[in-house]
């Protein structure tokens, strides 16, 4: 008798633990939010909260597709460089179209965005080919791409910064109904990616591949095709992030975007995306990215010296991941 009771109680605490673990990251989010509100009077200002969103939008745009890649068991280290290259190319195209060819600025703007995305797609395609056809480990392939494309971006402008980028900068600075345009784009993409991941076959296959690649193959899923699509989507988002970044910077900077992939990956992992594959959500990633953004913001507001900022950032990431991982998985992963 005694034992049955024991076991039931056990089960109950187990459920509580599970819920706790599952929603830990949201609790963490709320905790950081609350602490920040107390720590700095500036934090809760609407304009500051809008700032946080604006500052995280570009990271989020990279992090959404990267979440899908990680769920499917691979990764991408090149998005930062891709954003630099595609962004610079898009800006140059815009400047040429408006100043030399006299194209209408709105049309030129749309074409420039399309051009950046197109270039991103091509790079994503190349990444995909190298990884799926030639079986180069994704880490190495995208690390090499990160190096090469950064070189290409620098070559494109001869190492110079492009000034006078014109009205396209409104994409980075403008607002619609009080919402900054990058934030608006991020929110739209959040909805699209959530649907893509949860409601389409493509998304379902992403989970399946990450969960058990062989089972996915045996179920008739064309794994290489799905991977190709994922890298192409990643490239496209890199392109979009790139042009938005340049518009925010108000210049075409071939050195921009360095290390963005790490922040994007950090956000995704904080948000519960599993490095072993098969698990993760877009909402989690959004929350993860916002956590990173909030930390950066509050450290600035409190004028924490950058050394401490760096040290604390690392510590916080580890603590957050530990809280999130506890008991989730017992195997050590790369």
């Amino acid at each position, binding site marked *: 008798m005694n034992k049955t009771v024991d076991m039931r109680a056990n089960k109950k605490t187990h459920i509580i633990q599970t819920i706790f673990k599952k929603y830990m990251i949201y609790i963490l989010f709320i905790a950081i939010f609350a602490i920040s509100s107390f720590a*700095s009077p*500036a*934090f809760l*200002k609407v*304009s*500051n909260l809008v*700032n946080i969103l*604006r*500052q995280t939008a570009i990271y989020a745009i990279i992090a959404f597709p990267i979440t899908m890649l990680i769920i499917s068991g691979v990764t991408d280290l090149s998005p930062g460089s891709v954003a630099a290259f595609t962004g610079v190319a898009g800006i140059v195209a815009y400047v040429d179209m408006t100043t030399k060819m006299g194209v209408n600025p709105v049309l030129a703007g749309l074409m420039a965005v399309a051009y950046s995305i197109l270039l991103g797609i091509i790079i994503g395609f190349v990444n995909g080919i190298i990884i799926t056809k030639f079986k180069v480990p994704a880490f190495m392939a995208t690390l090499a791409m990160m190096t090469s494309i*950064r070189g290409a971006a*620098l070559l494109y402008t*001869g*190492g*110079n*910064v492009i*000034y*006078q980028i014109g009205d396209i900068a409104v994409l980075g*600075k403008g607002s619609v109904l009080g919402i900054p345009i990058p934030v608006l784009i991020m929110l739209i993409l959040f909805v699209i990616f959530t649907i893509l991941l949860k409601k389409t076959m493509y998304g379902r296959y992403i989970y399946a591949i990450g969960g058990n690649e062989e089972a996915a193959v045996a179920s008739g899923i064309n794994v290489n095709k799905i991977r190709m699509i994922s890298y192409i989507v990643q490239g496209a988002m890199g392109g979009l992030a790139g042009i938005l*970044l340049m518009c*925010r*910077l*108000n*210049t075409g*900077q*071939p*050195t*921009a*975007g*360095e290390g963005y992939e790490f922040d994007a990956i950090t956000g995704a992992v904080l948000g519960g995306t599993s490095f072993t594959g098969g698990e993760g959500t877009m909402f989690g990633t959004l929350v993860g990215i916002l956590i990173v953004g909030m930390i*950066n*913001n509050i450290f*600035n*507001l409190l*004028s924490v*010296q*950058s*050394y401490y900022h760096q040290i604390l950032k690392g510590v916080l990431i580890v603590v957050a991941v530990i809280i999130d991982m506890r008991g989730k998985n017992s195997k050590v992963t790369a």
Partner: protein
Amino acid sequence: GGKKDKATDAAGTTKAAETTKAAETTKAAESKTESKETTTAADSGKTFKIGFAAKGLSDAFTSMEASEYMRQAKENWAGKLEVLQVDCEFDTNKQIEVLENFIAQDVDAIICQTDDPEAILPIVEECKAKGIHFINDLAVDCDWAYEVESDPQDDGELLGEYAVKWLDEKKIENPTILFMQGEVGNQHANAREKYCKEKLEAAGYKVTDTNTANWQRDEAIALMENWCQVYDKIDAVICANDEMSLGVVQVLEQEGRLDGTMVISVDALAGAVKSVADGKLTMTIGKDIVAGCDMSLQLAYDLCSGVDRSADKLQKVPKDIITLDDQKTLQKWIDIHTAAGTYQ
């Protein structure tokens, strides 16, 4: 092309170019271009191999300087100097590697955009042993090296002096002064901050807040956006480079808080000069790279051909304070950038 025309122009008025006034330095440099002609005549016509260790080609300022070197080498020194340019990618260890490789290639002289003068000291000693001439832009503790110097201490002091002057004029009560650092731990970033703050403190001003944006515009924008939340009144923003100050200007402009705020920085990038001309950026410090490059290349050529230049162990590259008030200097820099094709 435009540069060449200017050179001939300048040649006509060479005699007058004796003063050390900053505005005249370009011409001063070109006066040397003329004296070069005389030394060449005496020479066998040998081509010397020069290794040029570029600090980093992924930054707007350093790559602007590097391309000025290559442009001058091509246009003014063809057949006399063969300049090998290698990028040190802002890594002191890479710079050492690059210099080692130059020595292995038996170059005649090395021009170095120095990352850390003490780190390369052993290399300079080795060059001394091998008779390879060494020209660099920071003070190296070795009698073999020639300096065509651009000291970050000067940048810091000029920043500080200008800020003090501006603040004194405006007579603001308890001014909010923000300092935006470059990459912490970097020589230039540290020196610019240190000496600027020294000047400010000496004049009784206290910097309200200091933080880094790692030389980067995106980080500068985010940092400035966040600062705007904390400080209702911002009087002065001092930045360690132009990339960051341009980001700062952008944010302040967007917030409608640029008017009456001083934003100053170092580098005189095309964008910064334009921003000064547009009345947005208050001031930027310009190292006269045209003159500086010419001084270095001339020195390299002279040393290789055996000309005695021991009197010129230390030459300072002139620096300009570029503001809207000093139209002459401003125009000079607009011209420099127009010639380089970077000014739009």
